[in-house]
C-alpha cells in the first residue's frame, strides 16, 4: 500500500495504523504532531487510526526559528 509521508511516497506492508507508521519510521513519539489528510490526529488516536491507499500524512516537529 502506498501513502505519502511528508510529501514522499512510501510503500507499506499490510494496513498499518498511524502508531505503527511512527514506529516503522523510528520517530520519537514525543514532541511531534501528526496530520492525516490535513486534519490533526491526537496522540491517543494514533493506534486506532488505520491508513488507507494514497493517504497523506504530515509529521512535524520543532526547529530553531524566530520569524520568516
Amino acid at each position: 500500500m502506498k501513502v505519502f509521508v511528508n510529501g514522499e511516497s512510501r510503500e507499506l506492508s499490510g494496513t498499518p495504523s498511524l502508531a505503527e507508521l511512527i514506529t516503522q519510521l523510528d520517530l520519537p513519539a514525543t514532541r511531534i504532531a501528526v496530520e492525516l489528510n490535513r486534519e490533526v490526529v491526537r496522540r491517543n488516536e494514533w493506534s486506532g487510526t488505520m491508513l488507507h491507499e494514497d493517504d497523506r500524512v504530515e509529521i512535524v516537529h520543532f526547529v530553531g526559528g524566530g520569524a520568516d
Partner: protein
Amino acid sequence: MSRAVTAVSREEKLIVAGHAFSSRLIIGTGKYRSFEEMRSAHDASGAEMVTVAVRRVPLDRSSESFLDYLNPALQILPNTAGCYTAEDAIRTARLAREALQTDLVKLEVIGDQTTLFPDNEQTLEAARVLVKEGFVVLPYFNDDLIMAKKLLDAGCAAIMPLAAPIGSGLGVQNPANLRIMREQLADATIIVDAGVGTASDAAIAMELGADGVLMNTAIAEATDPAKMATAMKLAIEAGRLAYLAGRMPKRLYASASSPLAGVIK
C-alpha cells in the same frame, strides 16, 4: 530614588493572556552557530519566552529533539513562520498545539519572499479562526493602527507590529506609527517584532511604549550572541523605565539648567 525605580521594574510584569513574565524580551531560536551558543544567549538574555518553528520531521535519520537544548523553564511560543496562506498557518498552529500542549501561537502569514512583509488580510482571517478555536494569538503584522484594531477586535491576546523587515536589523523605521498605536490602544499589549538590530533599537521601541520586544537575528548574528543578549536585556529595561518615567519635551532651542539670576557681571 534608585530603590523606587528598582521596585517599579520588579513589580511590573508583561501579561499575555494571563501568563505573567518578568522579562519583556522574547527571543528566537534560529540562526545560532550552535545549540550551545543559543543556550548561553538565552541564559544571558533573561528572557522567559522563546519562539520555535514547526517543520516536517526528517525521515532519513533519527533526529534528536531541538527542544532538548532549551532551558526547560522557558515558555515556548510556537510560530507559523514560513506560512503564506491563512490555511497553512491554521494547520501549523493546530499541529503545534497538539505537540506542545500550549494554546499560545505567534501567528505569521508572510506575503512576499523578498521583504517577508506580512499578508495582513490572510493574517486577520487566520487570527479569527484560531481565536475561535481557543488559541492565544499573537499576530505579526505591519505597523498599522487600523489593522491593529481589527486584530484586537478579532480577539488577539497581544499584537506584534514590525519595527522593520524580519532579519534586517534596521531598527524602528516608523516611530510615529508605534507612538500612535500606543496612544490609541492604551490597553493593548504591544510587542514589537522583527527588525531590531542592536540595543538602542530595542530601547527606542520600549521608549515608544511597547510592552515588549521579540527578536532573533540581532542576537543570533551578533559576533558574541551572549554579550548582545545581555545588552538587549539592559536596553529593554532602560527603555521601559524611560517610558514610565515620562521623557522631557523636545525643544528646538536651549533651555538653561542653571539659574539665570546671580551671574557675576
